[in-house]
């Protein structure tokens, strides 16, 4: 099933024509409505008239997460506040949130994209879908919710946190589809397995995203639950979940190119790479009104395949991610930068102690342990003092990254030092 055949099965020529037309409009919009982009374009000496189509894309300036932070909160919005109907926010690299805004039309298009993704996963208006992403500032919950409603399915807005209620309703309602993070779904599968309830559920499809996962995890989910699992991709800056999703052939994630123009660049030289090569994924939004972005650097490393897919769609496909060009971690669906942890520790002690973040996946749930070296400024000769210190660090970290971490105090000079750039992360999940 294809949700929007006209758009999803266009010929390459038609698609490029449409993208060019929309790019010109977007450039015009940001030049006239966003001071940041007007200045950036003037700096490199280009005007909206210089951009005639996607062949001119390389002339445009890049946008990074830092630009969103520097213009916090609404500096990059290209629509008047009266037109913005919703904001979401994700964590920034050093504590300040990245705020994104949507007009009513933006929300409609977002729902359209998620509806396409759900259709790719075989979900229809006859299904009952549990949305088990967090609802709130995070784009996961409300994003998936809007798409499922657009599709016409019965939406059960579970959010996260109550697995018992989720599994009970899954059985009682005869839920047929679920949207959540892959690690949470594996956890749900185990809970169902333990209670012997897998034969009682009617689940047939899962649309999972918001964190990296492997082909092995997908197979594990599919075998445990006897369902088909799909990989949905998105980032709040560009829109949220539903920027791309894989189809039943699982040969890459179809990008909804009529709304998000992808390109691959070399993260070092910042030059576009030839088709098919692996590099950093960059998106230019083509229809967004609230927060249109020119050449937004996702820092995700991948490659793009433009050949038509066996499923009938001609939408370009991005391959499974091969890592990131920065040090961002995704833990339980939350974006975490080591710099946030560092800033929190600095605030506590006045000096930055040496620390190491150890990310692991136990029983299919991500765990984060932060080991902190106990130096002069932190040390106490009382156990109570050390316990208070552990708690204080724990609170500061939770405030900074929005995740609970296990804090472990270790002796000075015991954490690994590297010669060049400091290594502050050990990721044992082996996701790439």
């Amino acid at each position: 099933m294809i949700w929007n055949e006209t758009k999803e099965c266009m010929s390459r020529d038609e698609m490029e024509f449409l993208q060019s037309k929309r790019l010109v409009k977007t450039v015009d919009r940001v030049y006239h409505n966003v001071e940041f982009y007007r200045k950036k374009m003037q700096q490199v000496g280009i005007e909206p008239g210089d951009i005639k189509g996607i062949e001119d894309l390389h002339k445009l300036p890049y946008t990074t997460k830092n630009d969103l932070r520097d213009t916090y909160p609404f500096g990059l919005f290209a629509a008047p506040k009266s037109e913005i109907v919703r904001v979401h926010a994700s964590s920034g690299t050093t504590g300040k949130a990245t705020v994104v805004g949507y007009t009513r039309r933006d929300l409609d298009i977002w729902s359209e994209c998620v509806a396409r993704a759900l259709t790719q996963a075989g979900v229809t208006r006859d299904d009952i879908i549990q949305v088990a992403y967090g609802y709130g500032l995070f784009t996961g919950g409300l994003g998936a919710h809007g798409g499922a409603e657009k599709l016409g399915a019965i939406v059960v807005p579970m959010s996260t946190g109550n697995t018992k209620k989720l599994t009970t309703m899954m059985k009682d309602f005869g839920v047929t589809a679920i949207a959540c993070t892959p690690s949470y779904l594996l956890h749900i599968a185990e809970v169902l397995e333990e209670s012997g309830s897998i034969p009682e559920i009617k689940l047939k499809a899962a649309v999972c995203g918001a964190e990296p996962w492997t082909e092995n995890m997908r197979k594990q989910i599919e075998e445990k639950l006897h369902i088909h699992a799909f990989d949905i991709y998105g980032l709040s800056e560009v829109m949220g979940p539903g920027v791309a999703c894989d189809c039943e052939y699982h040969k890459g994630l179809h990008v909804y190119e009529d709304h998000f123009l992808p390109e691959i660049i070399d993260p070092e030289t910042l030059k576009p790479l030839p088709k098919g090569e692996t590099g950093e994924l960059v998106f230019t939004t083509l229809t967004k009104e609230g927060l249109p972005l020119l050449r937004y650097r996702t820092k995700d490393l991948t490659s793009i395949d433009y050949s038509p897919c066996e499923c009938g769609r001609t939408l370009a496909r991005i391959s499974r991610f091969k890592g990131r060009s920065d040090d961002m971690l995704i833990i339980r669906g939350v974006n975490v930068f080591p710099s946030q942890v560092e800033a929190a520790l600095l605030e506590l002690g006045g000096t930055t102690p040496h620390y190491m973040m150890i990310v692991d996946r136990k029983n299919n749930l991500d765990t984060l342990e932060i080991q902190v070296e106990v130096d002069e400024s932190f040390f106490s000769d009382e156990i109570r003092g050390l316990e208070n210190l552990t708690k204080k660090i724990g609170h500061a970290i939770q405030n900074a990254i929005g995740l609970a971490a296990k804090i472990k105090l270790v002796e000075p000079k015991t954490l690994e030092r590297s010669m060049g750039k400091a290594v502050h992360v050990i990721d044992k999940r082996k996701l790439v």
Partner: protein
Amino acid sequence: MFIKQLSVFIENQEGRLEQVLEVLKQEGINIISLSLADTSEYGLLRLITSDPAAGQAALKKQGFSAMLTDVLAVRLAHQVGRLQEILSFVCKAGLNVEYMYALSNKEGDASIICKISNGDEAAVLLKSKEVELFSQEDILRIFC
């Protein structure tokens, strides 16, 4: 009035305590008394030694977190109820004992090391009650 205690942070790992003691041995430092407080992940070693400052320097050089803390060393007569009596002074003054451990004494008396919530107030209080406190010099003279 106070004596210096050497406090060392030790991770719960095989051989760490032995390594601390090895460093002190190399420096020719005598251990007079010690207490080891342990949690599931780390321990706190508290030591009364013949040369606390040298001990701290040597341990820091070897990468240990070591600090000097002021504690009270109290002489106790071998007498039923003496410790209880001393603690009753402390409690009545609204002070708390943070930790306490025994100190061996060649002169035949019992003695204890203790850290009390307000050290200065506790020292003045105990002196006014004619409780004998050892000084750093006493420690070297009597115990080493």
